[in-house]
C-alpha cells in the first residue's frame, strides 16, 4: 500500500471543511437543548439557511449579506417552532420533525430558479504571518472566515453558559423550568431566545454548505447533516468543547474513508462508508454507558412542555 500520496495536511484542511457545517448546527442545538427544548428541525433550518444564503449572495453579489440572510432565515424558521411549542404548547418532537419537512419543501420551492447558478467567490481568510508557517500554516490558518468564526462561536457559547449569569439562568431554565419560573425568570422568552440562536447557527451551517463547501444550490443538499448535528449534541454530552471533537471526528472519518478508497485500500467501500455513522453510534454507547453521568449531563427538563399554571 502506498500511503505517500496521502497528504495529512490536505486531509486536515478538508476535514475541517466537512466538519464546519455540522459544528455550527450542533453548537446552536446545544444551546437550545441546554434551555430544555428539543428542536428536531435542525435539518430544515439548515436547508433554509442554505437557500437563503445562496439566493441573497447571488442577488447582491455579497457572500456577507448571504450569510446574514441565512442567519435571519434560520432564526425565523426556528421562531415558528418556538411559537408553536412555547406559546401553543405543541409537542416538541412532532413540531421539530414537521419543521424539517417544511424547511426541505420550502427550500426546494424557493430554490427553483437558483439551480445552476454560481455564488460569488467564498470568503477566504489567510491569517497573516501564521498562514506562512510550514505545514501548520496550511493546515490551520488558510481557511475561509467561517471556519474561525464557528470556533469563536463555540468559545462564546462555552463562556456564556459557564461564566456568565445569563448562561446560568439559561441552564437553570433547562434543568427545572418550574423552579426558574418561581424565581421570576421568564422561561418562555429565555427559551425563545435560545431557539432563535439555534436556528441562526443552523442557518449559517446550511449557508456554509451552499456557499463554501460545494458552492452551488441543489435541492436537499444538506443531505442529513442536521441529523448528524443532533446526534453530536448527545455525543458531546451537552459540553461545547466536545461538540468540536464530535464534529471534527465525524468530518475526519468521512474524509478519511474517501481518501482511503482513492488510495485503493483493500477494504470494502461499504464498510468505509458506514464508519462515520458507526463511530458516532459506538461513542454514544460509550458515553451513555455510565447511566449516572449521562443523566447528570442531560438537561432535566429537556423536551418537557412548560405551562406556567401558578
Amino acid at each position, binding site marked *: 500500500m502506498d500511503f505517500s500520496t496521502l497528504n495529512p495536511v490536505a486531509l486536515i484542511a*478538508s476535514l475541517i471543511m466537512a466538519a464546519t457545517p455540522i459544528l455550527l448546527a450542533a453548537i446552536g442545538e446545544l444551546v437550545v437543548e441546554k434551555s430544555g427544548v428539543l428542536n428536531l428541525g435542525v435539518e430544515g433550518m439548515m436547508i433554509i439557511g442554505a437557500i437563503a444564503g445562496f439566493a441573497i449572495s447571488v442577488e447582491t453579489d455579497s457572500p456577507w449579506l448571504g450569510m446574514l440572510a441565512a442567519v435571519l432565515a434560520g432564526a425565523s424558521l426556528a421562531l415558528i417552532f418556538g411559537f408553536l411549542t412555547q406559546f401553543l404548547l405543541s409537542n416538541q418532537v412532532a413540531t421539530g420533525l414537521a419543521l424539517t419537512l*417544511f424547511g426541505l419543501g420550502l427550500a426546494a420551492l424557493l430554490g*427553483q430558479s437558483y439551480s445552476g447558478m454560481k455564488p460569488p467567490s467564498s470568503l477566504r481568510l489567510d491569517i497573516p504571518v501564521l498562514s506562512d508557517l510550514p505545514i501548520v500554516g496550511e493546515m490551520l490558518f488558510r481557511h475561509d472566515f467561517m471556519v474561525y468564526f464557528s470556533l469563536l462561536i463555540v468559545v462564546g457559547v462555552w463562556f456564556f453558559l459557564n461564566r456568565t449569569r445569563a448562561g446560568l439562568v439559561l441552564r437553570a431554565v433547562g434543568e427545572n423550568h418550574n423552579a426558574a419560573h418561581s424565581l421570576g425568570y421568564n422561561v418562555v422568552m429565555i427559551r425563545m431566545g435560545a431557539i432563535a440562536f439555534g436556528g441562526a447557527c443552523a442557518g449559517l451551517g446550511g449557508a456554509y454548505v451552499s456557499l463554501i463547501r*460545494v458552492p452551488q444550490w*441543489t435541492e436537499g*443538499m444538506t443531505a442529513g447533516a442536521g441529523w448528524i448535528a443532533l446526534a453530536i449534541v448527545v455525543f458531546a454530552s451537552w459540553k461545547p468543547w466536545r461538540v468540536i471533537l464530535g464534529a471534527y471526528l465525524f468530518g475526519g472519518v468521512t474524509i478519511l474513508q*474517501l481518501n482511503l478508497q482513492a*488510495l485503493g485500500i483493500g477494504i470494502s467501500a461499504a464498510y468505509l462508508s458506514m464508519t462515520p455513522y458507526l463511530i458516532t453510534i459506538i461513542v454514544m454507547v460509550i458515553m451513555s454507558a455510565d447511566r449516572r453521568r449521562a443523566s447528570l449531563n442531560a438537561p432535566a427538563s429537556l423536551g418537557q412542555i412548560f405551562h406556567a399554571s401558578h
Partner: protein
Amino acid sequence: MKFTTTLIAATALAFSFGGAVVSQTKAGFIYVGPPTDFGWSYEHDQGRLAVEEAFGDAVETTYVDTVPEGADAERVLTQMALGGADIIFTTSFGYMDPTLNVAAKFPNVKFEHATGYKRADNVSTYSARFYEGRHVIGLIAGRMTETNTIGYIASFPIPEVVRGINAAYLAAKSVNPDVKFKVVWVYTWIDPGKEADAANALIEQGADVIMQHTDSPAAMTIAEEKGIMAFGQASDMMQFGPTARLSSIIDNWGPYYIDRVQAVMDGTWASTDTWDGIAPGMVEIGAFSDRIPADVQAEAQAAADAIAAGTLHPFTGPINKQDGSVWLAEGETADDGTLAGMNFYVEGVEGELPQ
C-alpha cells in the same frame, strides 16, 4: 427527509389526474433527484418537456421528483397508476423491483424502466450506451492528464457504472500506457456535499482529471475551483466549470420518450428492450473545450464517428479481466449480455470492485 417534496407532488398528482379530460394520454415520470440537478434527472425532465412539446394538449405529463429508490417508489408508482397514467417512466436503476411489482398490479398501464434488465408484458426497459461516450472522454482524459492520474467518482457498484469505469479506463490506457484510475464509491446518486468531498480527496491524491458517475455538478464546481479538468455527466454542466470542463456525455431521452408515448397512443406499444448509443443520438458528446489540442479533438471525434458508424466497439479484445483471466480474445467484441451484467473490472484498474 426527502419525501416531503414527493409527498406534496404525489398529492397534487392525485388531484390533477382526478380532474383531467378523458381523451388525453397521460405520461408519468419519477425521478431520483430534483429536475433542477443539471445532471441525470434534469435530462429526463428535458425528455418529458420534449414530449409535451411534441404532442401539445393530446398528452398530459406529470412527474414526481426526489423519489427514494425502494418501497417509497412503489407507493408513488401506485398513486400514479391509480391516478390514470397510461405510461410511466421510472428513471433510475433502483426503481427496478418497485416497477415490476406495481406493473403486475396494473396490467393496463405501460411501464418503462431506465437502465434495468427485468421486463414484463407491460414493462419495457431502456438505457443508453453511456459507455460509448465514456470511451470518447476516456481518450481525451488519457491525453490531457499530466499527473497520469484520473479520479473517478462512482455511485453504486452496478453494471452500468462498472461498464463506464472499464470503458473509460481502456480508452485512456490505449493512448496513455501510464495512466492510473482512482475510483471512489460514494454510494449515492446525488449528495453534493459528499460528491465535493470525493472530488477533493481525489485531487489531493494527484488526480488532475475528474470523471463522475453521480448526478450533481458538485465535482465540476470543485474542479473549476481547484483548477483541474473534468467532464460533464448526463448533462453538459458548462456553466459550472467554464474552464475545467473538457467535454461531456449528454443523455438525450426526448426522441425515445416521444416514440414510446406515440406507441401508447397508437395502441402499438409492446414490451421491448432498447439500448441506444451515439448513432441514434441517445448519447451525445458535448462540444470540445478549446483547451483540448486540435489533434486530440480530431482523435476523439474520429472515435465517436467510428462508434456511430459501427466500425469501433469500445470493448474490443484482447481484454483481460482484473484477475488476469482472458475475457475477450484478439479482435473479439463484447456481447450485450455480458455488458449488461458487467460485474468485474478489466485488467489494470486498481482496487477491489465492491460486490
